């Protein structure tokens, strides 16, 4: 048995090494990602008032990231 459980809503993760700070994800996911003072994304948790932007917006953000640095992690 895997210790990880599959959840319906994937967690957004940022590959910090690959991220080049274009800010596309924050534009497409205004509820769940904000940019820090340097323009790099911060994924907001529910405790930080993060709101789910929906599956479609999430898939779009992953697809449109210019650096391929954003991905949706289903095992969490």
């Amino acid at each position: 048995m895997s210790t990880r459980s599959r959840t319906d809503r994937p967690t957004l993760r940022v590959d910090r090494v690959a991220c080049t700070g274009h800010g596309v994800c924050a534009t497409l996911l205004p509820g769940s990602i904000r940019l820090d003072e340097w323009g790099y994304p911060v994924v907001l948790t529910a405790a930080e008032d993060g709101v789910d932007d929906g599956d479609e917006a999430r898939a779009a953000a992953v697809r449109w990231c210019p650096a391929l640095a954003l991905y949706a992690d289903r095992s969490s």
Partner: protein
Amino acid sequence: MNELLWFVSRATGTASIVLLTAVLVLGALTAGRRSRAVSQTVVVGLHRSLALGTSAFLLAHIATAIVETYVSIDWISAVVPFTSGYEPLWVGLGTLAFDIVLAVVATSLPRHRLSRRVWRAVHLTAFALWPMALVHGYAMGTANEPLLRLVPVACALVGGAALVWRALAGHADQTRRRAVLTQEWS
């Protein structure tokens, strides 16, 4: 009918040059970004969708150039450069540019399945594609229509300016990371 195909071929070819230049400028703006996140998103989006739209114009340009019988260009010349019976060198440059377009589109659509290095290596060849397309358009624009030659010249100026800007803009991400490193950590 033949004449119509010839005109359509020239028109779509000229449109392709304008669109390719727009894609180049948008690509340079993406890589050398100096703008806000929202406009960056528009630029990235336009870069990708316009690139796909350009492919449609290119297909129409090539298909009409082959189908019309005024000049002899075979189907093989659509992919194998320098095989055309008509202006082999100048048509061949266009063919070479089209081959690069195919490679760039074929690596960009399944980008998530490829390594970043492979995608990038192929994507950088687009810088060779653009001047080839311009020279192809300029050399072939020999009709009594000055617009056919004016468009590649104007596009060369606009695209050239974008490339100079891109070179001067440096790497936004590196600059920013360096600035982050110099700050004091508490």
